């Protein structure tokens, strides 16, 4: 007697294309947000370089400012600013998902939590502007 036919067990595993993240707007934003961490790191390095130049005296600080005014550095910093804004906005939009605040037994609406984060952002930015303008 012949053996019963064996069911072929050969699951198909689809390959993921390298450009999978272009398929959907949310995937593109996700990849850009991940990429933004590099620019966040660069902004920290830039600030540290600035502080170091400041500590080394006026001549060094002027040299740093000249270097920072170069077209490549300005272009990089503009790009960095764009990514920092993306990073900040997506982070603030995330806060209501991560934070559940209850007041008198009722959950504070997500919009209020995100709104609070944005308000704090505007307040700190305004403070920095005032410090820079009125120094």
């Amino acid at each position, binding site marked *: 007697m012949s053996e019963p036919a064996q069911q072929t067990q050969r699951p198909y595993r689809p390959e993921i294309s390298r450009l999978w993240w272009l398929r959907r707007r*949310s995937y593109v934003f996700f990849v850009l947000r991940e990429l933004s961490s590099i620019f966040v790191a660069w902004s920290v390095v830039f600030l540290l370089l600035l502080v170091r130049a400041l500590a080394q005296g006026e001549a060094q600080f002027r040299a740093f400012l000249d270097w920072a005014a170069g077209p490549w550095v300005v272009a990089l910093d503009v790009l960095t600013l764009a990514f920092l804004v993306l990073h900040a906005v997506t982070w603030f939009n995330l806060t209501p*998902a991560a*934070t559940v605040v209850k007041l008198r037994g009722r959950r504070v609406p997500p919009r209020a939590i995100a709104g609070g984060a944005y308000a704090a952002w505007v307040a700190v930015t305004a403070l920095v502007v005032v410090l820079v303008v009125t120094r």
Partner: protein
Amino acid sequence: MADTITLEVARYRPDRETEPTVEAFEVPLRRDWAVLDGLNHVKDNLDGSLSYRWSCRMGICGSCGMTVNGEPRLTCATFLVDYAPGPVRVEPLANFPVIRDLVVDIGDFMRKLPEVSPWIVRGEGTSVEEGEYLQTPEQLADYSQFSMCINCMLCYSACPVYGLDPEFVGPAAIALAQRYNLDSRDEGADVRMDLLIHPEGIWGCTFVGECTRACPKGVDPAGAIQRYKLTAALQSLKSFVLPRGPR
């Protein structure tokens, strides 16, 4: 409205093909027909060999999840008229190995789910004579949203992190862990935290948010994972500041 609509159905018969192909079927276009009704029409009248899973037809059993025109959907709750004049492409859920036609292997999830102890964990249970574990409506509201999960796998199909790294515990399992963490009767949060506080657990999630958009029951797995991350971060901070303190 046309009388028929074309279903472009992914076929994979491992005994015949090395990779999926697409087969087109004309099915009646009726206002009350879901994609699943179209598939049942194919199976009953056109090609009895078409394989797919389904059961309840009312969005509860979670077995008829498929990719409809590129989106993970419950086919019993996705209506053909919304895709008229068609065609409607029906493929298996993404991110899972395909066993046959529209049937995927969800064994990976079935292995991961019990690891997060998705049940009420009690240190020392009370006896039956002591009565039930009581709960107020407010305490119920804390977790009821996360208890709506029907394990349909649409969130895994929508999650690019799971697609790229199948070791990731994934949205539904973490949301279910959180469902029990937030249950006032449960005492298993520490056990689950030890299991999920690693790069393949909660920290694997990069908050793409597609799981929440795909969920047909409004569970919001992405929100559950972000809340879990905040709890984990606070707990780590606490154990750093107070290394000898209680957990």
